[in-house]
């Protein structure tokens, strides 16, 4: 985009709103109420201006191509026939004041919820584009009408140059209405956030927006964000969904997180969701649900890899490559007999180093550090600390492998008590 250096090139929305509209003869014909842009990924162009004509109650729409000048004053070439009644926005159009100014947005780059103080526009040739959202103190002062005064004050009092705080439009996700969230620009920008950041943002929103934002996410993003969300809020979010959609999201979660969540839901809702879920995943989750959350059985996941001792290293690697997508834990492979009794453990490193023909039975480490289903989290934490493991298998009374606790799951339980 070629930018011709010119003092009138940049404009703020606050400088346009409320301004009089002049006809070519210089007569004031109305007042600017709002600015319409067509939503685009990079720089949304202004397509029209909403204005209140003199002696009229209802706002009228003035297409951009009828405006001959906007810097300094708004001049229009023809005001005689407003093209369309104002209320109807076209497909993919957005009112800047109504849906952005003073409203909350998500800055997907900084992973924060912010409030819009002003909007920064750029005029290139004959087009006006929305380029930045102003969230800074200086923007606020501009709205209040004290921009110059506060600039001077900060310079004089603190010797500090008050700078603008802009966010480029491509990092902005508007929140003010469900329609804006559904607006797939390229994709919903929230999915660009790290799931943990997205979860923080969801927790911070009010209850209505929280649901709107969550429901606008695709299934995979929703599942990842949900895993990181506070359990109480998880329940609220899932309760507001129908069982089919809820089960789609829960299937994408790891079985142990899914079990924790279903355990917190009201019984009827949980049953409804389990019925909708794929049978295999539902079985896994139901099994995990039987164990108390704070004990080994409640911390473990069932998505881990077991193989018989006759399998070779090559077969094991093939198996992992094939299954890794569905596993919560790939670093350890557990060797079991035909009745799922534990025989030994092999790390991914061992597997990579071993010659492809070696049978797992010959290379496995038979000294398996494991815990029992009923073990408390403190005992489990001790094992992790002592043996420096990344995961621990959970055995029942007859040494059947029932599940595996990845270090991450334990950390989530233990972390809140650290440093206190």
């Amino acid at each position: 985009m070629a930018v011709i250096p010119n003092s009138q090139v940049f404009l703020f929305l606050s400088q346009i709103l409320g301004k009089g509209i002049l006809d070519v003869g210089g007569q004031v014909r109305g007042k600017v109420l709002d600015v319409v842009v067509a939503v685009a990924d990079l720089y949304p162009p202004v397509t029209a201006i909403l204005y209140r004509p003199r002696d009229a109650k209802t706002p009228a729409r003035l297409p951009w191509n009828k405006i001959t000048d906007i810097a300094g004053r708004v001049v229009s070439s023809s005001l005689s026939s407003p093209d369309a009644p104002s209320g109807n926005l076209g497909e993919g159009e957005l009112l800047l004041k109504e849906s952005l100014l003073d409203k909350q947005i998500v800055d997907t780059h900084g992973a924060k919820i912010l409030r819009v103080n002003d909007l920064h526009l750029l005029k290139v040739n004959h087009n006006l584009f929305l380029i930045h959202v102003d969230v800074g103190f200086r923007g606020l002062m501009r709205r209040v009408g004290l921009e110059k005064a506060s600039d001077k004050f900060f310079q004089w009092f603190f010797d500090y140059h008050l700078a603008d705080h802009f966010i480029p439009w491509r990092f902005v996700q508007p929140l003010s209405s469900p329609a804006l969230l559904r607006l797939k620009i390229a994709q919903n920008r929230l999915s660009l956030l790290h799931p943990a950041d997205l979860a923080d943002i969801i927790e911070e929103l009010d209850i209505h927006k929280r649901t709107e934002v969550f429901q606008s996410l695709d299934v995979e993003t929703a599942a990842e964000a949900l895993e990181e969300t506070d359990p109480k809020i998880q329940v609220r979010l899932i309760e507001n969904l129908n069982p089919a959609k809820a089960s789609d999201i829960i299937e994408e979660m790891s079985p142990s997180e899914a079990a924790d969540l279903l355990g917190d839901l009201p019984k009827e809702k949980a049953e409804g969701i389990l019925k909708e879920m794929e049978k295999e995943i539902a079985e896994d989750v139901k099994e995990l649900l039987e164990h108390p959350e704070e004990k080994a059985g409640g911390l473990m996941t069932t998505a881990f890899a077991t193989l018989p001792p006759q399998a070779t290293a090559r077969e094991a690697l093939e198996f992992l490559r094939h299954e890794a997508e569905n596993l919560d834990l790939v670093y350890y492979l557990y060797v079991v007999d035909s009745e799922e009794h534990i025989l030994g453990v092999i790390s991914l490193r061992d597997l990579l180093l071993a010659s492809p023909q070696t049978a797992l039975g010959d290379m496995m480490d038979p000294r398996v550090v494991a815990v029992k289903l009923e073990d408390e989290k403190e005992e489990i934490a001790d094992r992790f600390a002592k043996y420096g493991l990344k995961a621990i298998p959970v055995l029942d009374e007859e040494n059947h492998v029932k599940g595996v606790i990845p270090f991450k799951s334990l950390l989530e339980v233990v972390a809140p008590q650290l440093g206190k």
Partner: protein
Amino acid sequence: MVSNGSGAPPAFPRNSGEPEKEISRKGFWKTLGVFFALFGPGIITSNVDNDAGGITTYSLAGSEFGLSLLWTLIPITLALIVIQEMCARMGVVSGKGLSDLIRERFGARATFYLMIALFLTNLGNAISNFAGVAASMEIFGVSKYVSVPLSAFFVWWLVVKGSYKSVEKAFLVACLFYISYIVSGVMVKPDWADITSAFLTPTIEFTPQYLTLAVGVVGTTIAPWMQFYLQSSVVDKGLKPEDYQYARMDVVFGSIIVNIVAFFIILLCAVTIHQSGVQIETAKDAALALAPLAGKYCTWLFAFGLLNASLFAASILPLSTAYTICEAFGWESSVNRKFAEAPQFYGLYSIMIILGAAVILFPDLPLIPIMFYSQVINGVLLPVILIFMLILVNDRKIMGKFSNGWALNLISFSTIAVLIILSGSMVFSVFL
């Protein structure tokens, strides 16, 4: 597992976490249970309302005019319920705080000046509460140079280092201590027949002192900050529109409790100080005057109540102010964040506490003019906020089917009109 397909419910024997919800059980106990799970905002807000300024005003009302101002508590309670109910409803329906709604509806400029006024008037309130701490601790023989810095630090530490759960629990416990006023009121064995008739018979004296104090009683009970605090707490609780009835119960309950406490303070001062003809000017005077008339335990109870109220309000007011302002300007605001993550929030909070405490410690600062102007700003701010609230609660885009009907509008219009006339006359009288 469930293989027979007969729909036998799978068991969920999770013994950690909350006790199982019994969906089928209905009726009184369930209602009560839900109420206790959701209550808090209304009761805390109302009790903070009886802060040092409130206790002083009630003491003055009782000791100067005896029981004759007691009846005003009935209309005040009703007005409080009407206004707080609107806030709670807006919080539940919109899921947004009041300053959030004001910013989105009325724009940056109005919000900016409103927030400056709110900051100044709340700062005045914070000062009066640290003055209350100083006064009550002096009755126990503790110098204000010890008590004020210590309490300021305690209040600051509670929020900056504590978590919100512990803070809310501490606040709910503080609410219980208001009982000390009721205990001292009963201890002086008043003539209940007299009191009942004074309570139920409105009387008005058309003297400037009487009217000033009547306006003072109203002004101290219905303050601008409360609407912001209440609505934000309701939002924080995450109440859904279905739970709205519990929020309303909470508000009604809280408004009644606050006025019961006010009732006992006025009564206590009326039957002791007023009857003996002693002149008092502050809540500390009132507490000290009680010793020869009602015994030293009564003084101690009164002073303890004042200390509790002052500390309680001194922690909530700065918190509520910081929260409200940050919400309006989109700054990070949460007691669950660290200092560096929410600098404006903790900055505002700390400034209010430090300034509030410092004014009390520097004897040369003009305390009385400061308090006076803070009351004036309060009187100007309240009508503006009440009018904004009326516009918001009637906005169908925000409130949908929960917006005011004509009957509710009639009640709230007349309540707000009376309050505006009262605070207007208060501001006007200042310049006479």
